[in-house]
């Protein structure tokens, strides 16, 4: 046929999903992040380490959100899973060592996400977003109205400090969780999950006609995403050692991963991590430069960059290249 005559090669079949070359920037990021605590940070070391820690957490939150978004589910429930991780860790940490409480809290959030995923299965677009937003409010309200002895009520809850409050150890734990999130993201990219998620996102009914088990893959996306988001919540709770419902389940925690991923580059591994880094650093710099109204400038910068960079920072990095979104 026409095709064979023009192109006898089957190169397209053998081409790897994630070319090694495209992993270079990601590897560079993790090398820099690993080296960061060993840099001569001077007398502001404590402050800088704290910013770096929360940058890693923001990366975990954004990248885990992006994994869910890849399946077409644009969620505003990320604060709920982040918060369930934080509260789960605070409460479970009372009855088991931290290294068990951490995965247990994440697993708990993952199981609860399956309930939300099942309920919102048939919703899409704005209706899905609103339902997930409402879910966050429901979870917050429940936690807030539990007896104070159980979850601290509206006042909040003390959390045992992670790793005895050792800032450097905490940083490396956050580094490890972000690395784990990135590895999960890359593993998805190389597996059948990537094809299922992308097909569902780009045409759910067509995907079903082609045999994609939409229910299974949507729930799987929810589970993976919320387990990772909850690990981010554990880091947050263990670092601040005091959590309350209003801040933990705040709308900002649901919006931030969305804007961060869009800013960095949707449906990629590096994009949300890069977005989190640039935005967190920009926020701090602006905050120090203009005490009042820094949020206005921050918002403006975010808006303009989203307008000018439709594919986010990744669009700048990969200008002119095609496919292989890493």
């Amino acid at each position, binding site marked *: 046929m026409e095709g*064979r005559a*023009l192109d006898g090669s089957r190169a397209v079949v053998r081409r790897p999903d994630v070319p090694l070359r495209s992993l270079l920037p990601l590897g560079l990021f993790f090398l820099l992040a690993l080296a960061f605590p060993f840099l001569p940070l001077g007398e502001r070391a404590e402050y800088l380490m704290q910013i770096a820690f929360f940058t890693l957490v923001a990366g975990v939150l954004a990248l885990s959100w992006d994994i869910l978004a890849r399946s077409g589910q644009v969620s505003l429930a990320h604060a709920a899973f982040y918060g369930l991780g934080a509260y789960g860790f605070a409460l479970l940490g009372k009855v088991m060592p931290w290294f068990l409480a951490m995965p247990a809290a994440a697993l708990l959030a993952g199981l609860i996400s399956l309930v939300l995923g099942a309920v919102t299965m048939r919703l899409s677009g704005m209706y899905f977003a609103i339902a997930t937003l409402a879910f966050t409010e429901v979870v917050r309200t429940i936690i807030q109205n539990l007896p104070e002895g159980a979850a601290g009520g509206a006042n909040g809850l003390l959390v045992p400090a992670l790793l005895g409050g050792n800032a450097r150890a905490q940083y490396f734990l956050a580094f490890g969780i972000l690395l784990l999130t990135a590895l999960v993201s890359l593993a998805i990219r190389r597996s059948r999950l990537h094809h299922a998620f992308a097909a569902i996102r780009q*045409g759910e009914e*067509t995907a079903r006609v082609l045999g994609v088990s939409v229910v299974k893959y949507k729930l799987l996306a929810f589970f993976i995403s919320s387990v990772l988001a909850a690990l981010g919540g554990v880091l947050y709770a263990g670092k601040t050692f005091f959590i309350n419902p209003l801040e933990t389940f705040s709308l900002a925690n649901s919006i931030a991963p969305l804007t961060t991923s869009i800013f960095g580059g949707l449906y990629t591994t590096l994009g949300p991590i890069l977005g989190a880094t640039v935005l967190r650093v920009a926020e701090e710099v602006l905050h120090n430069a203009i005490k009042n109204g820094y949020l206005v400038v921050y918002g403006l910068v975010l808006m303009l960059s989203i307008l000018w960079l439709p594919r986010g920072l990744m669009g700048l990095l990969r200008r002119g290249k095609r496919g292989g979104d890493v």
Partner: protein
Amino acid sequence: MTVMAASSQLPAASQRDVVLWAEGLSKRFGGLLAVQNVSFSQYDGEILAVIGPNGAGKTTLLNLLSGVYRPSSGRLHLLGRDVTAEPMEARCHAGLGRAFQIVRPFPEMTVHENVTVGALFGKPGVSLAQARERAYDLLERTGLAAHADKEAHELTLLQDKRLEVARALATGPRVLLLDEVMAGLRPGEAQEAVELVRSVRDSGVSVLFIEHIMPVVRDLADRVVVMDQGQVIAEGTYHEVTANPQVVAAYLGTEEGLHA
């Protein structure tokens, strides 16, 4: 109506196996009975056309067959198995493929990735590497191999239709449903599409298609089912149904006419 009475029972005496059997399918939307007690059988290796004037219920019937709609009453059997209650993806796994009239490529995927989705999920237990190979084979078969790396929106309409067929074939169907694949094609392109459908059948896939263009129906169909106002009014070869006074009456006065 003798035709319907005959086909509402499995024709056991038939030499060939029945791959698709619709048994009294009806679909009601509020007060409108869009499809009314439709029965027919499709035999293995057969190209079956469903024709009828606009609003006859052809597309609703196709949606009942592929599982977009559940019937209000009636049963559907695929390869001897009752699939009436099964969702779209299960019907796909059971051997039913569908190409849409309005092409629906996944826009952010390459042509090869589009077909890989069908190959990967159409049947359980296919590995990613196998799916890629199979997808490329199908691109070669449908004349799209040279475009494997393009994004779907870069294709011409004819190529898009080929992609639609390649992707449906990638799921490994025994029965392929085609919804007006000739729509929008120029005469020369339509001829190529006719050849493609023939080659699909020759590869062992039974084809059920909806079509408006009568010369295409004449050239392709082994048998024709004619629908009007939600019901089957005739069934037979192209020449039998076009000579049927009831069919002529249904088409008379419509814009298309029977020999448009």
